[in-house]
């Protein structure tokens, strides 16, 4: 047994030795993403010298960012990171996705573990000011809504008086529901269930008349039911504002601009009818001056951002215009454009002019 104990000691020593040999590579891997030159000051330079964008994404949220069977992240938020990488590095593939949870996402951004959070984060006053972040753009307007059975005949939120409502506790969802009911003098009976699977299970089993969460979540839940989903209806009423978008560290205006205008380029592209398919062709021969400026044929818009002039072409070639990215990722979930239509179609997606 003494031999065993001594062997144990030797094991520890050897393990420590192995760790000592292997750790430099772990450390190297980590020094790459965040070089000692303070990353907050010049994120663009840091990203360029590293050659990859570090993008914090959700560990798994259908349609926004979820790994497929091959382990590749796909989704709307993921595509936005590809777009930023295409603009900044000229290659949409130069992104490293870092999984972040609700709890550690802000630390990851603050500590420089990621350059950008593209992770369905709601833009709110305190996050923008007190936490020291910037929200360059709103890529998805979400909001809390209601889902009912289609045969219940309910079409408006005001008809929900006396209904039982399935809701998850803790988040703002429950609070929003109570506020809305009080403001509209509607009597509702909340059925509070912790886990998502259980709360949706309770709703589909008929334990409550209404299920409330963010509209995107409702649509995804309904889509997951397959053909049976048509027996359910999502009401038009939206009772809270959840503007979701990418988040960057405050104090780096150049990077913030690049992120914001990447989104605007995608929105503008949709407005001008530029798609993944026709972008090269449009860049060659579209006569509209703003399209020419956007696609870098005339003017020096790219240089003003510190990017090559064809940056927007690269973005659109990588992920398509806003509508294409939306349809590709969120369309299969049955999420309607709703407020995310272009401003020309009565929605909120609006890109400032490219001039």
């Amino acid at each position: 047994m003494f031999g065993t104990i001594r062997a144990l000691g030797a094991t520890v020593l050897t393990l420590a030795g192995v760790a000592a040999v292997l750790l430099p590579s772990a450390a190297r891997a980590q020094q790459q993403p965040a070089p000692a030159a303070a990353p907050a000051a010049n994120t663009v330079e840091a990203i360029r010298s590293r050659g990859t964008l570090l993008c914090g994404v959700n560990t798994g949220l259908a349609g926004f960012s979820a790994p497929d069977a091959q382990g590749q992240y796909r989704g709307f938020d993921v595509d936005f990171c590809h777009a930023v990488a295409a603009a900044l590095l000229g290659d949409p593939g130069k992104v490293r996705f870092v999984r972040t949870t609700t709890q550690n996402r802000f630390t990851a951004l603050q500590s420089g573990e990621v350059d950008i959070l593209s992770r369905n984060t709601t833009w709110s006053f305190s996050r923008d000011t007190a936490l020291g972040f910037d929200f360059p753009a709103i890529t998805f307007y979400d909001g809390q809504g209601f889902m009912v059975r289609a045969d219940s005949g309910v079409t408006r939120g005001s008809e929900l008086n006396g209904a039982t409502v399935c809701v998850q506790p803790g988040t703002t969802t429950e609070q929003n529901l109570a506020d809305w009911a009080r403001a509209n003098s509607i009597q509702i009976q909340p059925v509070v269930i912790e886990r998502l699977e259980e709360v949706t299970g309770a709703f589909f089993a008929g334990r409550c008349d209404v299920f409330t969460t963010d509209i995107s979540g409702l649509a995804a839940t309904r889509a997951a039911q397959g053909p049976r989903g048509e027996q359910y209806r999502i009401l038009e009423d939206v009772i809270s504002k959840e503007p979701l978008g990418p988040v960057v560290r405050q104090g780096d205006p150049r990077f913030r601009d690049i992120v914001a205008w990447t989104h605007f380029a995608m929105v503008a592209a949709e407005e001008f009818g530029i798609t993944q398919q026709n972008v090269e062709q449009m860049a060659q021969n579209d006569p509209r001056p703003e399209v020419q400026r956007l696609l870098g044929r005339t003017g020096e818009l790219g240089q003003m951002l510190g990017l090559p002039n064809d940056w927007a072409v690269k973005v659109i070639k990588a992920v398509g215009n806003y509508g294409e990215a939306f349809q590709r990722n969120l369309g299969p979930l049955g999420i309607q454009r709703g407020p995310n239509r272009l401003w020309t179609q009565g929605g909120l997606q609006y890109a400032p002019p490219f001039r």
Partner: protein
Amino acid sequence: MAPADTTTRVQLETAVALVPGEASAPRSPPMTAAGPVAWLRANLFSSWLSTAVTLLLIYLIARWTIGFVEWAFVNAIWEVPNNQTQACRELKGIGACWAVVTEKHRFILFGTYPYEEHWRPALVILLFVALYVVSAMRRFWRKELVTVWAGALTLIGILMWGGNTAPGLLPQPWEQLLALALLLGAGFAYVRGWIGMVWPTAALVYALLAWVGPVLDMPYVSQERWGGLPITLILATFGLAFAFPLSILVALGRRSSLPAIKTLCVLYVELIRGVPLISLLFMASVMFPLFLPEGMNIDKLLRAQIAIILFAGAYLAEVVRGGLQALPKGQYEAADALGLTYWQKTGLIVLPQALRLVIPPLVNTFIGFFKDTSLVLIIGIFDLLTAGKTAIVEPAWQGFGVEVYVFVGVIYFMFCFAMSRYSQNLEAELNRHRRR
């Protein structure tokens, strides 16, 4: 009644006496007194109440088994073409949709590790299992096991990271030759008994780094992309491999007569045991980076690993201390009387007996920690369970959680059950001298 009884016995004796050939042949007892039928009668059907309970249980077990077999095998769907889960949904729960496991098993097992490189984590899993099996066999309990561990862990590191695993150390051809020469030299010297085993072990690690990495020339994969079963095995193996020796030291320290060491150990154990593992992981993942200078980053996996080691260390220390205290005082005094030093006494007399006593609670803690590694999900590391959960996020596969959880559960069970059975054998073997 009594006279009739007597008569019978007398007759029997007569019969035996009359047939000399059969007298010595043992006769089996009647069916109703021994054997399975008797056992059934005695234990399951002894009274009408117990008969009723037995029948009810048989009915329930049979029903449940038939139901399970129908769900898991008869009505199950094993495969669907390109993510079309309609067939599965039409089952409405009467059959399992194993198609989700067929489709996603590689994601569940290997997480977001690059798809074309999956053979590497697969090999790592096999290496781990082989390492466990070799370490479990008593015939391999010798010093050379340390070399095996060091070599296997180095190989695991090379396979998982790929690329040039130890940068700046190796890739020159002359270094490869040097590594080979060192390994041969050290091996020879060790066999001849000139040097201890630390040198050949170091030479082996060096040679593996010099040869396997460059020769296989695998692309580099950063830790963010690791996931699935290898993560669970890495966290559990390294966690327990470091925590166990740590816990022995802490347990000894807690019983030490030196006040400073004693206080330190008590403080460590009580502080760590006073908080849940999840909050330690939070500290490691959320608070710790904020204390570091900006731009400096210690890898998330490493932070979680250290948190697990510290936590497991505190719990195991208390288990080991239990063993130390159970030892009669006479053992310590006898060792002292022999004039043994503290470390001789501890290594030769105290620990061998103490650890043997605490095998069941030790394995209990080991199994607990193997499963606790799944808590790393809250800091965004994809262990086996998290990978399973994430696999069913995709809309096409939502709602097939049961199948995925059964699959993941079976994997956890295999490892935990193996540990438990092995510990029972070990316990029986090591405590053989106590059984009389």
